């Protein structure tokens, strides 16, 4: 593969990262809203997993939704893209571990990811597949999104232009 072809190939990978990045960002923003609105319900969801000790549950329930909201927004905007994608990947790994443990314990519960899912949608293998897909989208962004289609790219372009002037 020549240098030009390589550049073109990576350009395509970066372009694919754009919709994935925006999609995963929107998912995280939406997921954060009900948790911010009702931290008690989210704390109860965390407790239902029966993984974390009691003293960790509330700090987790209070902090995590705000992290989700912030990194969701930064992902949509393409600002600090790699850092946001890294944090989302870390969270997705954490969620996947929690889901797997809950499934091995045969817990019949909602994943607690979105308000509308309460009681209606029990966790199952399909939840694992969905989270794996989201982890894939976050990792794709982490690896291939160089920020050219977002605020990162625009700020970098503006800095370069200012320096040139």
């Amino acid at each position: 593969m020549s240098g030009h072809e390589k550049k073109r190939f990576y350009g395509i990978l970066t372009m694919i990262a754009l919709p994935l990045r925006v999609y995963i960002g929107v998912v995280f923003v939406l997921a954060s809203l009900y948790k911010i609105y009702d931290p008690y319900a989210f704390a109860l969801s965390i407790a239902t997993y029966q993984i974390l000790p009691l003293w960790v549950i509330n700090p987790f329930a209070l902090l995590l939704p705000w992290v989700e909201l912030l990194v969701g927004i930064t992902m949509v905007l393409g600002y600090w893209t790699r850092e946001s994608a890294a944090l989302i990947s870390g969270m997705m790994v954490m969620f996947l571990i929690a889901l797997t443990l809950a499934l091995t314990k045969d817990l019949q519960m909602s994943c607690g990811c979105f308000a509308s899912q309460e009681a209606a949608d029990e966790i199952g293998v399909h939840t694992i597949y969905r989270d794996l897909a989201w982890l894939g989208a976050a990792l794709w962004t982490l690896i291939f999104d160089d920020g050219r289609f977002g605020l990162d790219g625009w700020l970098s372009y503006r800095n370069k232009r200012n320096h040139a002037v």
Partner: protein
Amino acid sequence: MSYPTGKKMDDVMKRFFIRIAILLGVPLLLAVAVNLFRPTSLDWIAKEAYEIFQDCPEATAQAEEVQVEFVRSHATSLLWVDARSEELFAVKHLPGAVNVVYDTLFPVAEEDLHNLQSISKGKTVVVYGEGGIGKLLADDLASQGMVGVKYLNPQFDWKTLLMGEMP
């Protein structure tokens, strides 16, 4: 797509971790501030354990049903277990019966199970109660490893036994 190397890489990594710290620090400040001014704020450390909804216990073993003839022939070696409420048990119960209240939501407590196992040595445990609770409790006990537990046929008029009469 090119990746930085050497000192430039160190700078990139440093910037990466500083940004990660900011992306975690800002939400922490927001969480503290919003929770502080929320009318029903959540304690940062939970004082009481959360009440988690558990699945209703499902019997994994079936107890054996016994008929009148069995009660007659084993009258001296039976341990009656009354599955009814404490109030009904207090009003009247079969001679020598022990009360283990059946709860549809919770399996028999381990302590009750151990007590029952220790006092039933050499005896046949027969559970009775109104409706189908005799069978439900017997199945629950059998599911928890109690061997040879039986229940009285629900059609059997065990209330006559309560009056001290053997049918």
